[in-house]
């Protein structure tokens, strides 16, 4: 593979994780999967030497083993317990695996392609 350089990296653990105040309002309904992705992405962009990347020249690639699995279980439980007309629209929209990429794109103003790959 040519032309690939890692210019910044960030790692976060869920234990003790708190979204920064600047993102608190925007992530108030987000699950842990989304919140971690957004906060980590923001830190990486902040640390990257390539500042002011054009929005349409920046893409998102998220690799995840389990994705929003807990949210999936919650939405399925709601479907079973409450019936198909009662599931929360927010819960359902957060249960798709590309939900985190969507949040990252919106909150960090990234207009390039967004891919989510899961095992």
């Amino acid at each position: 593979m040519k032309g690939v350089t890692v210019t910044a990296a960030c790692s976060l653990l869920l234990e003790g994780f708190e979204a920064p105040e600047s993102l608190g309002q925007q992530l108030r309904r987000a699950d842990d999967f989304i919140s971690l992705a957004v906060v980590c992405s923001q830190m990486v962009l902040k640390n990257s030497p390539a500042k002011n990347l054009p929005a349409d020249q920046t893409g998102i690639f998220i690799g995840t083993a389990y994705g929003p699995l807990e949210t999936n279980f919650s939405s399925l439980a709601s479907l079973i317990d409450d019936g198909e007309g009662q599931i929360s629209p927010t819960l359902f929209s957060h249960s798709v695996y590309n939900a985190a990429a969507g949040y990252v794109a919106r909150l960090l103003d990234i207009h390039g392609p967004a891919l989510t790959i899961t095992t």
Partner: protein
Amino acid sequence: MQGIVKGYGGASDAWHPTAPHPQGRGLKKALEIAMRDAAMTPDQIALVNAHGTGTKANDIAETTALAEFLSDEQTSIVSTKGATGHTLGAAGGLEAIFTLKALRQGVTGGTIGCCCPDDAFPVRPLCQGETRELHSRYGISQSMAFGGGNAVLVLETMP
């Protein structure tokens, strides 16, 4: 072999967790990228299999984006979700297959369940009961996702 992917384009709306950008900003970008990747011009496209969920927000955004690229006089715009429902993760693959099959047969049917397209649509989808012959073996299959994801495939059926 049914066909090949001649080009691909992807872009993000960066707009809303569920609603598409009202003018289809991300889809327009994805279409631009896909057509450039395929080295093709819009007049070569015979068929677009739209994301076409039949919601007001989606359909107006999608037709607005498409109107900047092609004419509904030359290109047939259909959604197959009227027949299958929204198959979620399977939609992209399934609809690419439908696109290739239609291109191979050289004819497309209209959108099941679509009888009275909104007058606000800048391009008119093919309606239920209508059929049209396809003037080329090239088509587009496009999908839009929660979170503002947009993906466009330019497909060519094999002769």
